[in-house]
């Protein structure tokens, strides 16, 4: 049985359309991440599900029950806010039990649930403190605890990691991963950080420009991006998109020519591509490697070298001015200004049609 169903959700602020017919179905206990740049509508969608915003059209069902007409407190959802939104004058214990008291849950039951949540989140020592006396990470856990005790059917997490420093972010990421193991509920997390979405979610909903661009498991989003936006947005550093022309040929796979004349043999089925239309060749850094100047697919000049330890990222420019990101060994000796050769692994390349739609390599037989 599906847990959350969104049907054709629409929302506008005045003349500004922020959500244009969004539909989505979540499985029971599924963890879905809404991923997208700011202004893509992902937070608005989350707030509409929570009941903090009213959609202009569409339906929301949770476990088969229509909830979009209900007030937030009646929807069986719990939310962890970006800035935690803890009640500053209440103790941690009061913060966590506030919702249950309003729902008239029996006192013993409230105490048991708070104690249980405090135990798993390791905030038992903090129960009688005020939020102002806690560190950022502790506040985050109280906010999660406040959501857990309500035993909702759906958890909503609004950018849960964005306020934490790098070390704490990794730890909290682990905690959120554990949270989904502990709770018998579906989770939605809004994030603009693709690493969070990739590591935590069962499925990612990539949003941009008021619409869902692609829905799929993380690796599918990465390996088979539905369009050039998803291709550029997911993956770091971003995929290089190079203008390319389809070459006539009798092979079943497409052969394209780049702006500087280099030719690349892909494993994208040629028959699916629009004829005579400008294409873009999509190349992830790991599919472009550095060679001697004459040995590669094409030549380039190095503009920036990023040494990451285990690998080195080379930002280079082709003769026609196109910027390409390539990857080299961790101990690469390449320096700024070097003339290098680039070997393009056409077998892993993607092609994007004039409408941006993605065409991907057939898996090798």
């Amino acid at each position, binding site marked *: 049985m599906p847990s959350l169903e969104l049907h054709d959700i629409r929302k506008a602020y005045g003349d500004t359309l922020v959500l244009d017919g969004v539909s989505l179905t979540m499985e029971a206990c599924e963890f879905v991440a809404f991923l997208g740049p700011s202004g893509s509508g992902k937070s608005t969608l989350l707030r509409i599900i929570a*009941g903090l915003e009213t959609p202009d059209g569409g339906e929301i069902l949770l476990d088969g029950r229509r909830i979009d007409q209900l007030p*937030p*407190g009646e929807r069986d959802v719990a939310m962890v806010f970006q800035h935690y939104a803890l009640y500053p004058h209440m103790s941690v214990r009061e913060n966590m039990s*506030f919702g249950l008291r*309003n729902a008239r849950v029996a006192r013993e039951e409230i105490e048991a649930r708070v104690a249980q949540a405090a135990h798993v989140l390791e905030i038992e020592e903090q129960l009688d403190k005020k939020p102002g*006396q806690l560190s950022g990470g502790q506040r985050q856990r109280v906010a999660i605890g406040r959501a857990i005790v309500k035993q909702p059917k759906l958890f909503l997490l609004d950018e849960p990691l964005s306020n934490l420093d790098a070390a704490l972010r990794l730890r909290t990421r682990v905690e959120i991963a554990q949270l989904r193991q502990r709770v018998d509920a579906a989770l939605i997390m809004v994030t603009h950080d693709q690493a969070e979405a990739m590591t935590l979610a069962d499925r990612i909903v990539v949003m941009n420009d008021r619409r869902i661009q692609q829905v799929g498991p993380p690796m599918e989003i990465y390996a088979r991006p539905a369009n050039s936006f998803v291709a550029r947005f997911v993956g770091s550093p971003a995929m290089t998109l190079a203008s390319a022309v389809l070459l006539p040929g009798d092979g079943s796979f497409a052969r394209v020519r780049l702006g500087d004349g280099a030719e690349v043999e892909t494993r994208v089925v040629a028959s699916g591509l629009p004829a005579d239309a400008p294409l873009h060749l999509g190349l992830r850094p790991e599919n472009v490697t550095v060679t001697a100047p004459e040995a590669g697919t094409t030549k380039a000049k190095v503009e920036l070298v990023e040494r990451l330890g285990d690998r080195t990222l080379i930002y280079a420019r082709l003769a026609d001015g196109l910027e390409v990101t390539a990857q080299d060994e961790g101990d690469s000796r390449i320096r700024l200004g070097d003339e290098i050769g680039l070997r393009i692994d056409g077998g892993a390349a993607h092609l994007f049609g004039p409408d941006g739609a993605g065409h991907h390599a057939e898996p090798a037989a």
Partner: protein
Amino acid sequence: MRTPGSWRRFEGYAFVGPFLLLYIFILVYPLILGIGISFHRADLFGARQWVGTENYARLLADPVFHQSVGNSLKLVLLIVPPLTIIALALALALNRPTKTAAVFRGIFFSSSVLSVTIVTLIWRFVLTPDAGLVAKAMQALGRDPIPFLSDPNLTIPALAITTIWWCIGLPMMLFLAGLQQIPGDIYEAASLDKASRWTTFRRITLPSIRRTLILVVMLQTAAQLQLFGQAQLLTAGGPSGTSRPIVLYIYEVAFGRWELGYAAAAAELLFLIVLAVTLIQYWAVTRREPER
């Protein structure tokens, strides 16, 4: 030649200096002078005769002074609680970003910019028993007009109503400022926590503006203990002193009976009363909960 270092040391004083001078001459010096005068028999022409604590002893036995202290306390009790509640209610109602709310904020604040003379004039038109607005309304209902300004039981309520109307603007603005400090997301969290409107007000809003509430009550208590103009202009303290607050008593003693030393002693006692009341309030509201 002055070095930059030594200039820096005096730079701060240069900024606070003008204010400090004014403060000393207008407030600190008269305060000390007043304490001095209160131990003298003094008149307005400068005659001084040391009498020790005689003025204070006389005051503590003076039934007219007692009556004025009682009147002032009654006024505070009749003004501060309703003023605070009405100001808070107005602030809650007008704490929204609409044009209408802005217009009403302006209207409710506008009474505060009027001088006490205008305010009492307006309320005289309303309260006067022969031709006032209230009297006309009562007549229309077939009742006798209410003698607000001459019935000893009604003069203090009449003063209280006038004062509340006059003073509502500032506390309302303070509450609005306090309400706007509350982050919106805790209200959203409360709505997800199924909190009713009343629970939200009692558990979220009220604790969040606790400091503003303390400030308003303390400021208004101190201000209304010093209520003067309305009483002088509306009832002149009458009938038979039933609406005479402390400051009006001090004024009459100093400038009517020319007993400057005696008036100064009464002023010092008022100072102590204001100090004590505000300190007790502060202690009462802060002792329970240590600030985070």
